């Protein structure tokens, strides 16, 4: 009952959104002053504030009357980049054309955003990640839960921007900026073009629906130069996987023909020049193949831990150069996934795209990941394991990898205040075991 009451109270924040949408900052100031003068001038014999109220109300009424008269048709085209990233302002362009014969000044533009307020069920049943750490008052009031749900639903912060003068019958190219707040696909509904009233208080709108979407990549952090865990293992499949099909060993040198050399290795140009058969010598190339293991099995209900793990994994993907190596991304979603990038197979950005869409695995056991990783152990030179926790299941996985003699780098997500766990199976190689505080990821990752 009480929670429903709080929910109803917080829903009133919709009025706040409406206010900011319908009025300019000056308009909101006038509305506030009108409210204050109405309260102060409620007894017209005691103060003269009612006189100011009458004037301010007149301004708002005249401003409001201009709202229905803005019906200009705009043709808007949005030119989006391929990706955005969480926390990085996303700048893109709009092409705006209007049929008027006069230039249009002082217009405002913004992305139309859906109502970010959560439903009652979401408010009642979705728990904010850090809610258990909050004090009794905050846990009861659930205001932080509300804020978290609003941010979660909003996807991006899109602020209103002023448009430069729009020239008539021409395509005006203007830039627009939004700030994505969560990874994944961001749906953009349409463009709102606003015109303030003559006093600059109340806005009239024209809405141009333009549904488009853009993929928002996870937040990434800078990593120091890492000595990635490598074994001197010849990766099965080698270059054939990387650049071409069949034997595609790298050219090493020329030498004289020896009996038994295949004729197709004869270097005909040299044979012609020297008069004796010269053989092209090839050398099998040794290259590094890493596997990035992403833990998608949440042991608790902590979504922040998972988001941090995604960011850490994305940071590794961005950091490891796939020009010179291969990188496998191993995780379990609806089923076990293995995705390889590098050496011409695919680029890192494809892997980041995958990471942008990874969700928690709720219906498969952890052993699925363990099975996939252990079977992969023979093919890679080292593992980077990004784990959400350091419980027995995870330790068992690491124990098996250690037993298989595969070099490992283990990164555990740790909540603020949580003690650093003992390395356990990594006790033999503590330098490659890190428990990072997710509230301070940038600094913690820089220390790796």
């Amino acid at each position, binding site marked *: 009952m009480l929670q429903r009451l709080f929910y109803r109270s917080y829903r009133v924040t919709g009025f706040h959104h409406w206010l900011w949408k319908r009025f300019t*900052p*000056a308009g909101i*100031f006038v509305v*506030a*002053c009108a409210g*204050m*003068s109405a309260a*102060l*001038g409620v*007894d*017209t*014999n*005691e*103060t*003269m*504030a*009612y*006189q*100011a*109220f*009458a*004037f*301010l*109300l*007149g*301004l708002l*009424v*005249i401003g409001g009357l201009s709202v229905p008269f803005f019906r200009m048709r705009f043709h808007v085209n949005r030119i989006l980049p391929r990706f955005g990233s969480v926390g990085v302002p996303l700048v893109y362009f709009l092409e705006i054309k209007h049929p008027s014969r006069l230039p*249009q*000044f*002082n217009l405002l533009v913004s992305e139309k955003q859906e109502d970010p307020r959560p439903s009652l069920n979401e408010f009642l049943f979705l728990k904010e990640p850090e809610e258990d750490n909050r004090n009794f008052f905050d846990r009861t009031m659930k205001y932080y839960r509300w*804020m978290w749900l609003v*941010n979660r639903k909003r996807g991006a912060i899109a602020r209103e921007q002023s448009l430069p003068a729009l020239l008539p019958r021409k395509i005006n190219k203007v830039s627009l900026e939004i700030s994505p707040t969560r990874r994944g696909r961001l749906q953009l509904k349409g463009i709102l073009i606003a*015109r*303030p*009233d*003559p*006093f*600059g208080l109340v806005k009239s709108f024209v809405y141009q629906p333009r549904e488009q979407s853009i993929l928002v990549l996870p937040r990434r952090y800078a990593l120091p130069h890492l000595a990635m865990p490598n074994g001197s293992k010849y990766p099965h499949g080698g270059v054939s996987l990387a650049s071409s099909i069949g034997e595609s060993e790298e050219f090493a040198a020329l030498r004289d023909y020896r009996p038994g050399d295949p004729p197709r290795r004869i270097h005909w140009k040299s044979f012609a020049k020297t008069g004796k058969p010269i053989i092209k010598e090839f050398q099998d190339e040794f290259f590094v193949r890493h596997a990035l293991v992403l833990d998608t099995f949440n042991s608790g209900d902590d979504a922040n831990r998972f988001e941090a793990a995604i960011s850490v994994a994305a940071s590794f993907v961005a950091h490891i150069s796939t020009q010179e190596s291969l990188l496998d991304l191993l995780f379990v979603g609806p089923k076990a996934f293995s995705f390889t990038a590098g050496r011409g197979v695919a680029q890192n950005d494809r892997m980041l795209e995958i990471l942008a869409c990874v969700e928690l695995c709720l219906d498969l056991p952890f052993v699925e990941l363990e099975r996939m990783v252990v079977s992969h152990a023979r093919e890679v030179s080292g593992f980077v394991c990004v784990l959400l926790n350091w419980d027995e299941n995870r330790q068992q996985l690491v124990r098996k990898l250690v037993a298989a003699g595969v070099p490992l780098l283990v990164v555990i997500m740790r909540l603020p205040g949580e003690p650093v766990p003992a390395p356990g199976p990594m006790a033999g190689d503590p330098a490659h075991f890190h428990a990072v505080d997710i509230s301070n990821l940038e600094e913690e990752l820089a220390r790796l």
Partner: protein
Amino acid sequence: MKIPPGLLGATVLLWGFETRLLPFAAIVALLIEAHHFTSLRFDLSELDLRRLWTLSTLLFVGAAGYCFISRDGPSSLMIFLQSAAAPSKSKAFFQVFNVGLILFQWLPLIFLPMMLGQLYSRAGRIRLSSFFWLYRGRIEQSTGNFYVNFGFPFIAVCFAAASAANSRDDLFYPCVAILSGWLLYAIRPRRYSVVYWLSLVALVGYGGGWGHEGLHAAHGILEGRTAEWISRLIQRNTNPNESKTSIGKIGKIKLTSGIVMRVHPVAKKPVPSHLRDSIYTTYRGTSWFSALGKRDFASVIVESDQTSWKLQNQTNFPDEVGISAYLNRGEGILAVPTTVGVIRNLPVLILETNSLGAIKVREGPGLVRYNILYGGDNTIDSPPSRAEENDVPETERTATLRIVNELQLHGGSAQEVQRALVKLEKYFSEKFTYSMYVTASKNGQPGSETSISDFLNNTHSGHCEYFATATVLLLRQAGIPARYVTGYVVDEFDQDKHCYLVRHRHAHAWTLVYFNGSWHDYDTTPSTWINEEKKLASRFEGWSDWWDDIWYSFSFWRYLGNQDYYRTVLVILLFTLLGFLAWRIIYKGKWNKTKTKKSEASADLPGADSEFYRIETALLTRGLHREEYESFAGWIQRLQQTGLVPVYPEIPGILQIHYAYRFDPQGLTPEQRLYLSSAVSECMEKISKLPNALIHKN
């Protein structure tokens, strides 16, 4: 958005003109506008601006406290919170509201430090977090830094302050319109022509002028209607001290247990069991009327000591009791025993009584502690009128007549009356029970019995109002004059305070019976009622009593202590508190700084024990000054280049090792550490051998 030059000053001048503080306003306006003509700017940090805001807040709190205390705010607030009567609440509310209005007029001065802080700071704007403590930290991190121009709220504050002065001149509205227009012109969208814009502003100005006159007129009409409605409401429902009460009124009062008065025994004499405040004569529907109005009260002449009031000619009274009670803004009906004769120690200007014996006082303090001399057979009540002997409503006659006949009640001689009273008391005690507050729900329904008839014929259960009303009607039916009285029963003795506490739940109604040439209290309500009501006492009654005690002590000290002294004491206390808060804030800031510095200094920095610092100290003491921006290496290099002083060639080598010791994460090997120590010692020996004068001379 920028505020056009001159607008802030003009707004301040408007405030000064309206509040008759033009000289102050002129100085303030000058200070504000001077920032356009001077390049003087201060490098105010976020912390400084927060402190300025804290200063403004403290000034606001101080001014509010001063206004509140000096304008009789505490008593108004208590009346507002405690009074049950709507008119008193309303009056007290407007008194508090007026305190707020006076405070409003000071606001521009209160917020001036913040305004000047913004105008004369290099940043020229203020972060939102400077104003709101809650906004700092997480919320600001998540939403980004928001800056505000304090000039806009300052203009609004000036307008509000000017309007609160209520000068009623014709300049206020045009000035507000012009100044607002000035501000709007600066931010107007350029897509509209100036002529079009001016026309619209003129339209708004004209419409607003017409509108505010209409608002004022509408308010006048509404106020008249409201007053009419409230007066009807009061007549219908509320004031038991005046001329009317309804059955259920006392019952409602009983629902709370706040302390109404304290009854102090005098010289171990017994205290009166009943203290009455209102007497009623006529019963109609479910209401009692006194048949007397406000105008029927007559003043009593005060005795020579200015605090004693003689109500009866008799001089000797066997009993005496002290009573402490609150007066609502110095006015009220005194609760007294029926046989009251003299009231002493009552510091009021006017005391009035009516023929029914109600005693009203005016122009008194908020709390009075008076002594009453009482006892004997006489009362100040007028003898019964004929109507009071047989005035029984037709609707109740059937029921009352049946009981009178059944009990064979009749008046006549004093003995007959007393016999009738005994019979009646026995009748009620045997056949009726006390029940908690019930409303007179059946009243007014056609064909149904009235509340009292129902009580007498069917339910035989009710609260004191039913018993008292029924008794009066039965006695009158029997030809015995009777009146209906409301007041309080004195029953609960508090050992700690050595006095009787009279609570709201002790509110009671009973009967006055006339025989032997005087009026006597006669109560037929079963005596169990006090215990029954006590069961309803809240579990938090102790807390409520604690607060009542504090308020009583404060009121006693305020009204009955040294009355001239309290304001000074409160103001001194207030300003001491504010001073302490200000000092705390400033000191806390310094303390934090000191703490930070100390902690920085005492931090266990790697290499902090390097012996190289000895060389530095030795060179510094010999006058080889090191600039603040110079590193050790730069300093040594400069000394070497100048060639004016003998700087030993091994110092750069020692410095390298010192740097390694200080900054290299690997640190020094034991050998290197030993070398650093020994090399510094050797170098120090050489430096110490040099005469200071030589170096200075060089």
